[in-house]
């Protein structure tokens, strides 16, 4: 059953995202002069991604029946593949497959 709230939420998310993408072009000259924004813009990508990674890693439940082993192995495979091949698609697919295989068939 589609819920009206989904479409409201999606509309709000789209409006915020498009605004964030458009605003800097409108304020381009002014923002270019801001040293604070330049610094924050330089530091933000790594920091925001690291926080998102921590957020996801914190959802791994080591008190679950499978002790979170599929996810922990998935992280190890993802990191290992990425250090080895530097290929994002390979790392994503390999790590996710490891997690899926373990949690679906080996440690259900």
């Amino acid at each position, binding site marked *: 059953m589609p819920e009206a709230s989904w479409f409201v939420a999606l509309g709000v998310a789209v409006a915020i995202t498009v605004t*964030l993408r458009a605003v800097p072009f409108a304020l381009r000259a002014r923002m270019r002069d801001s040293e604070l924004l330049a610094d924050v813009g330089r530091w933000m990508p790594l*920091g925001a991604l690291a926080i998102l990674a*921590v957020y996801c890693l914190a959802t791994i439940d080591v008190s679950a029946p499978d002790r979170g082993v599929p996810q922990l192995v998935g992280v190890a495979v993802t990191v290992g593949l990425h250090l080895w091949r530097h290929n994002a698609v390979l790392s994503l697919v390999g790590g996710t497959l490891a997690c899926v295989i373990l949690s679906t068939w080996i440690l259900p």
Partner: protein
Amino acid sequence: MSGVVEVAGSESSFAYAARRAGVVWAGLFALGIGFGVLVISKGLPWWLAPLISGTLFAGSVEFLFIGLLAAGAPLASIALVTFLVNARHLFYGLSYPLDLVKGRWAKAYAIFALCDEAFALVGSAPRGGLTTARILWIHAGLHVSWALGGLTGGLVGGALLSNVRGLDFILTALFVVLTMDAWRESRDPVTLGLAVVAGVGAQVVAPGSMLLVAMSAFTAALVGRHLLGRRALREEDGRA
């Protein structure tokens, strides 16, 4: 014969875009399948995947959006998470070559579809090789691949993968990989340290609103770092 010339022109623009961005298109298609499957695995209808991917077109936020939607999170939380996670887009406009995109609608579409990958691909391309058509093809290829991936994952996910568990791990893998890539770009231990402390601290103090607390604390720490850096610069000037 102007029609023939036009077709040939658009083909070469497409070929240029495919050469520069084809691998990323394929990657987004694969990741889009993961997104579609995640939508299904959260008990949401398959068509939400291509709908969200076509309109929101912001990979990481979409994965979080689906989790919040499935958990029945309040609209204010969804809005705040969207704002904080996508706030990095504020900085893309500072260097994206929008002046090379001619025409009102072309500019509007380029801004609408300015995802991380589009910024990275267009921003890193040699300026001399870029035309309106080539830039739009790069964007459109990313957009279509991502939405088609969502459609495929939503349909196939419902039919074949309903008993498969653990697929939402792709989000964890995505952020681990993107963090490793960002680290290779900047090798900035202070930023990484502040972010990890903010993230772990927020998870301990406020597990229910971890992202909000962590992103706010991290941003505050960056402002403080900026001010400290400026003061250090002034002191150096004073000594010199």
